[in-house]
């Protein structure tokens, strides 16, 4: 993980939530959320004038990825990014420290956050009629979420689906860092035929390939963060850069999951061992907001439409 004073200060709380969620497991989601609110970290990306820390998304990235690394089942990254994206429109919500996420909420249908397994939601930001709205919701992760109250249209223009997908992908990159660590540790620890299984070439080659996927995903997260710039009016998304990065992170999910489970053997498919919290997240996260093909199609279309060479398109839009 990258050195960061912000990360150092919040990581103990993330770790504590992780322990209660995965190993004990006795998480009280609302109490955990309240602690996050207390920490002030929901405002990481807001300017100091709004009681925020004034970080750019790139500067905040170690913290945002750590939320995935510690498998937080809370909409922390989603909320922090939405506060940054819609500061004026959401002024009231921010004052109340509402827990937000991107999702869909059609009339008469259940409210559906883009990300599965989320606890503690107060409202969904949804795309509607070419604009975006805030839809208050109630419910929980088992029963599902329902619209509860008045929908508020926002005047701001934002590709909310891309933002929600990016929020998920930054966390997936963090989750892959953890999965790689778990896998290497296990390969060095588990002994068969009288030596650690990590000594066998067949596993070394697979873990090397997995390392490549994880490093690509981490770099893609940095590219995406660089394509999300905050200004007075909110967050502007550099569509091609963020879409390409999301595609790369999503494309890494399945191979990383497959190798992690292959190396772990039977222990990896037990409820007790923490791997499944991550691999479940990676499999669901790959789909959330659209799989890699959805985003790759958009990038390919943009490249063709640009009329530029592939190399020049890459330099101009994805460097």
């Amino acid at each position, binding site marked *: *993980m*990258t050195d960061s004073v912000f990360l150092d200060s919040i990581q103990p709380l993330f770790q504590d939530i992780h322990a209660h969620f995965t190993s004990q497991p006795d998480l009280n989601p609302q109490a955990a959320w309240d602690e996050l609110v207390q920490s002030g970290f929901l405002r990481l990306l807001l300017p100091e004038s709004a009681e925020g820390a004034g970080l750019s998304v790139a500067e905040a990235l170690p913290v945002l990825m750590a939320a995935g690394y510690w498998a937080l089942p809370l909409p922390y990254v989603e909320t922090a990014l939405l506060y940054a994206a819609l500061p004026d429109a959401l002024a009231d919500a921010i004052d109340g420290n509402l827990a937000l996420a991107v999702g869909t909420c059609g009339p008469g249908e259940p409210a559906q956050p883009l990300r599965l397994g989320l606890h503690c939601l107060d409202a969904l930001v949804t795309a509607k009629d070419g604009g975006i709205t805030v839809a208050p919701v109630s419910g929980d992760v088992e029963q599902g979420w329902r619209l509860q109250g008045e929908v508020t249209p926002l005047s701001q223009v934002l590709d909310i689906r891309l933002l929600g997908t990016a929020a998920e992908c930054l966390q997936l990159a963090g989750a892959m*860092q953890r999965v*790689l*660590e778990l896998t*290497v540790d296990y*390969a*060095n620890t588990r002994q068969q035929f009288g030596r*650690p299984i*990590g*000594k066998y*070439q067949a*596993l*070394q*080659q697979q*873990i*090397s*390939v997995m*390392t*490549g996927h994880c*490093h*690509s995903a*981490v*770099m*893609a997260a*940095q*590219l995406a963060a*660089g394509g999300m710039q905050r200004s007075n009016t909110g967050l502007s998304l550099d569509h091609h*850069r963020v879409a*390409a*990065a999301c*595609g*790369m992170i999503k*494309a890494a999910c399945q191979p990383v999951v497959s190798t992690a489970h292959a190396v772990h053997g039977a222990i990896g498919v037990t409820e007790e061992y923490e791997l499944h919290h991550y691999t479940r997240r990676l499999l669901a996260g790959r789909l959330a907001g659209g799989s*890699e*093909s959805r*985003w*790759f*199609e*958009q*990038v*390919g*279309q*943009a*490249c*063709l439409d640009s*009329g530029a*060479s*592939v*190399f020049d*398109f*890459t*330099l101009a839009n*994805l*460097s």
Partner: protein
Amino acid sequence: MIPWPQRQTLPASAEALRSEVRAFLVAHPPAAAADVRARSWMGFDAAFSQALGERGWVGLTLPTQYGGGGGSAFDRYVILEELLAAGAPVSAHWIADRQSAPLLLRFGSDSQRRELLPRICAGELYFCIGMSEPGAGSDLASVSTRAVPNDQGWLLNGSKLWTTNADRCHYMIALARTSGQHGDRQQGLSQLLVDLSLPGITIRPIRDLAGDAHFNEVFFDNVQLPHDALIGAEGDGWQQVTAELAFERSGPERILSAMALLECWCDWLRLCEADTGDQRTLGELVSRLAVLRSLSLSITAQLAQGQSPVIPAALVKDLGTTFEQDIPAMLADQIGRRGGEHGRVELMRTLAYTSIIAPTYSLRGGTREILRGLIARGMGLR
């Protein structure tokens, strides 16, 4: 664990060179046909290399006292990627610029530096790498070429194989055993500067499966080298070679080998009706290119700081050559998916050449399987 990559964008001063390189390429245009440009690495054109040298773009990062440009690793990166993306014939000065000059600067004697580096920077002096042998490919430590010290210097006997451009270069930097026994592995190896015009050297070109002759076998029969042929310290050859490979394994040349094909296909797609399958394939390749380029630049940043990121460079090379090999594999399917309706002749020629030569991408400079072993060790396995 291998440290996680840190994104590094190009400094504005390096980015500013891009338009200068493009202007240079207008004045010295690469071949028009994509299947010729696809041979960029193997295009040997001394006039092009000298023009590049006159412009100050060979040995760009070397100190000015040795004729270099005193530029940064990022300046060099921009020039290389522009040349490679354009399919320029860079093969003549390529090895000297990339590996031999930095090696000589770091380990060479003062007289070696003063004599050789200015001529490398002028784009006039070309080098090849004498590593592989008939019995020493991936197992490089088993080299059996031997240099025995005598009163005139070193007496060299043995042979090298797959030596790119040996028939057209002035010097080879050869890895040879200078002390100890054959079974001593990494101990007792040294790097020696071999003037390829010396008596006792026979060079035979080997034609490749695409009909090109770029690599060679080289035989040494009692070749007398002077005392100062030794580069660095006797017995330090293995460490020097390892450091050299960090320069070889992470640059834009590990990403852009199949760009001529990708560009040719993209041009063709704009003429026909691209469907979502084409868009998806193009989008994947563009996205992979973007991430790879960022990873490669993060290695460049480490090299610029004087580090020797051997294992991160191996990781980028593995990802990069996989990308380069996936381009012809994926595009063959995309083009063929349209049934009998094939692309234009230039596209099909470029596809055929790139497809048949692509296996070499993950052989040169260390095979994929060896690199993955290095990566595993870097991750703390074995």
